[in-house]
């Protein structure tokens, strides 16, 4: 079982307590009604789906119930780091093979 560090509980918890909530750092337009159909499609449907490092939202559903962001490697399924919701994308990743 994977252990995922919850930044609010400040410890590693078993993956069964968590839910994935899709890609992180997707900003909703302030003027959503003024968006063109193409831009809205990009915002609403198109995800990066990379092979490698992905920034995701996760929720500690059966714990503190908070949403947070995680950096995960889709190849190794390893969590590189997690950080609180609202914080900017981390500039440096610990242990990233680049």
């Amino acid at each position: 079982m994977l252990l995922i560090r919850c930044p609010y509980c400040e410890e590693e918890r078993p993956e069964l307590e968590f839910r994935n909530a899709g890609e992180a750092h997707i900003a909703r337009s302030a003027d959503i009604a003024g968006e063109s159909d193409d831009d809205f499609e990009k915002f609403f449907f198109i995800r990066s789906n990379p092979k490698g490092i992905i920034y995701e939202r996760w929720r500690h559903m059966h714990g503190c119930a908070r949403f947070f962001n995680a950096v995960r490697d889709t190849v190794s399924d390893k969590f590189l780091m997690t950080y609180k919701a609202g914080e900017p994308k981390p500039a440096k990743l610990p242990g990233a093979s680049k």
Partner: protein
Amino acid sequence: MAKTATRKTVAAAPSAERRAALAGQELSATGVRLAVLPPAERISLRAPEASVAALAKALGVTLPRKPKTSASKAGRTALWLGPDEWLIIDEAGKDPLADCAEVTALHSAVGISHRNIAISVTGPAAAAAVNSGCPQDLSLDAFPMGAASRTILGKVEIVLLRTAEDAFRVECWRSFSDYVFTFLSEATRDAAA
């Protein structure tokens, strides 16, 4: 007119008898004992940082700020569930909802006394019994006495509180209580074996 009449009837009728789920059920095996605990008053409390002090004063119990901790005083326990969320359990029969009503600071207190039931798991093999469905580390280092956490047991969500080195309080939703008690009964047999 009709409205008044209805109200009167309701007020005059005796309040419905409350039947607690699984009331009084018990199970004993080698090393573990399960018991459904008597009804208690419970509230779900959400409050921002600025209101915590006033609420703690009104409730008469500290609201813990550290994850996975609880505080207890005079039959009332406050369990940390999230950064702005607590579960208050009162076993002394006083209503914490009434205490919160006097606080003017911003907060949300919801009575959930009848939503939850509590099961106590006690004995030297208590941790093993709970661990059969709960993936958390329940060693005394990681989950000491007084530690509390929302987590899962088998397929359902529970709130787990360690009341003593070899005693746990499992809070679950009433509608899941049958599942939880049966699950723990099976786990008890396994832990005893």
